[in-house]
């Protein structure tokens, strides 16, 4: 029984140029597992995590179903405009880590107080002592909880800010953690530290993780299942092990090939290079201009889901065969 499932999620802009940010996204998250969402910048990764918590701007039109299914609580959301439905979820059931960690904290409030704000909300406004916050900080792996408690967000280095953001997310004791590109602004060493800490916390607090990234390497090494996005479309949703060995969508295949070449330090093979200029690719498969297998059909309509094994699927008319 999945803890979270999203069905046919679409996000469109209402006013001005009506455009589609996300189109028909479905995936499930099993308890205790890690789901990686990968895609280029602008593929709609951040939109997904904001949609799950219902914090997208009101000017967007959101359609689809979401089911949150924890042992005691069961929430299904059909009407995304209703803020009240999301209130019980935020922070205490599902927590979100933003890409810009320092920017996601109140610049005028000490980190300790910000943690208190969240603990209070989660614990129904009981008073929280300083000691309990310090304890919590040392439990989440900080060696100097007191310094963290006293400092303002701008006083933290980039890596430390990410760790504090993680602590803020954990403060509500959520069941699901969504991490939106938490490592993209970190250098190699701090990134490794962060990922290690994330893994420890996941185990310690028994979390289910949605890990958003543009780095296929990270996605492959961390996750149990992967959702591949391309320009607002879910092109493939697979178990990580299956995706590694037999990608179905040409985009996934191309990504894996590129990764293999780069890792082996050799130039990748030629790719199709049809550079689209402007234009609206709302109807067809968004990858058709770069795809070596595309035909006229791909440009007209987006291919239907081909289900491999519930709930995993891919969307392509001419899928890659297993090697």
């Amino acid at each position, binding site marked *: 029984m999945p803890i979270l499932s999203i069905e046919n999620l679409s996000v469109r802009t209402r006013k001005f140029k009506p455009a589609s940010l996300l189109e028909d996204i479905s995936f499930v998250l099993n308890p205790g597992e890690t789901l990686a969402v990968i895609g280029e910048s602008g593929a709609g990764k951040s939109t997904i995590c*904001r949609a799950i*918590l219902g*914090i997208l701007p009101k000017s967007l039109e959101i359609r689809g179903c979401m089911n949150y299914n924890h042992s005691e609580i069961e929430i299904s959301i059909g009407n995304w405009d209703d803020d009240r439905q999301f*209130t019980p*979820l*935020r*922070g*205490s059931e599902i*927590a*979100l880590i*933003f890409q*810009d960690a320092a*920017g*996601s*904290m*109140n*610049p*005028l*409030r000490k980190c300790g107080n910000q943690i208190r*704000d*969240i603990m209070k*909300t*989660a614990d129904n406004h009981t008073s929280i002592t300083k000691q309990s916050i310090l304890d919590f900080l040392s439990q989440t792996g900080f060696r*100097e909880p007191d*310094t*963290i408690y006293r*400092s*303002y967000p*701008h*006083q*933290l*280095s980039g890596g*430390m800010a990410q760790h504090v953001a993680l602590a*803020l*997310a954990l*403060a*509500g004791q959520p069941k699901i953690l969504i991490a939106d590109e938490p490592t993209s602004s970190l250098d190699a060493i701090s990134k490794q530290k962060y990922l290690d800490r994330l893994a420890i916390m996941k185990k310690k607090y028994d979390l289910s993780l949605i890990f958003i990234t543009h780095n296929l390497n990270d996605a492959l090494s961390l996750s149990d299942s992967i959702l591949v996005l391309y320009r607002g479309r879910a092109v493939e949703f697979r178990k990580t092990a299956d995706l590694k060995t037999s990608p179905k969508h040409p985009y996934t295949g191309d990504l894996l090939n590129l990764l293999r070449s780069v890792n082996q330090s050799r130039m990748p093979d030629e790719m199709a290079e049809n550079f689209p200029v402007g234009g609206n690719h709302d109807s067809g498969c968004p990858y058709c201009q770069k795809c070596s297998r595309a035909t006229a059909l791909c440009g007209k309509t987006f291919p239907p889901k081909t289900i491999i094994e519930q709930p995993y699927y891919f969307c392509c008319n001419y899928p890659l065969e297993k090697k």
Partner: protein
Amino acid sequence: MIPFLKNSLIRGIIRRLLSTILTLWVGITICFFIIRLAPGDPTTRFLTPTQSTQTRDILRTRFGLDQPLPNQYFHWLARVGLHLDFGYSFLSGKSCASIMTSALKPTAFLTGTALIIALLLGISTGALAAINTGRLTDRILRSIMMVFLSVPAFWLGLIFIGFFSIKLGWLPSAQIRSLYYDQLSPLKQWLDTGKHLILPVLTLGLPLSANIYKYFRAEMINTLQSDFILAARARGINKSRIIWQYGLKNSLLPVISLIGIVIPALLSGALIIEVLFALPGIGRTMVTAVFSRDYPLIMAGVSLSFLVVVSCNLLADIVCLVIDPRAQNNSGKII
């Protein structure tokens, strides 16, 4: 370096203090030369056309106007700088300092109350509009405030006088106190002054509140759209806490520096209001002094108002420096 200078807060304050003194000196110097280089002669007022140039020369010597301009400047600067002595008014012969002190009280009352009212009104309406962006409340407030923002203060005052003083006779239209002020009990004296100040304060405060409204609304919308508010929502912090503790508090900080900025506008406004309502404040004293070319009095008034503006700016800066944790220690990450 001297140890206490290492504290970035104290260093910041000292730096601002020095630059404020510099600003003050440059500003007053500019005023001095503008006033003295303007055509016209203050002695003309004391002479009838029949009196000889000799009398004029005597007067000029007495006022110190026969000296070369740089000498006059340094003389004036030394006297003001060392003894805070602004000299004596040409016209009344009283000390400029005492004239200014008595004129300061009505002006301070007027501008202070107007500023407080403008801040209360501006911030509350601004916050209300920002929370309800795009809704009916926002649109109504926007139209009202657009009128307040654009209305010439003196015309608003004229209409107020016409309506509340002349037509309805509810409120006095001129002066700061009634003729029988001295016979009143202390409490009644306060009430009397208050009654006299209602119209001037409203006339000055309403247009100003529109400025503050406009600024605060934009500031708060900006804050409410920033990432940390979104993150706070995602973390489940409830809506009222987000609006008050996160949104309002974070938008209030820039308002402090705004206060420093609106002071010049407030003084300019007070000038017209004082003339219109015949309040014996600095503005009206200045207008009379300008008409009679009373140089020492003009300089005293200009210096005083400039001092007020500059020190308000300084104060606002320091308050920001003390309150805003980001203002200090910008480069040093502690962890």
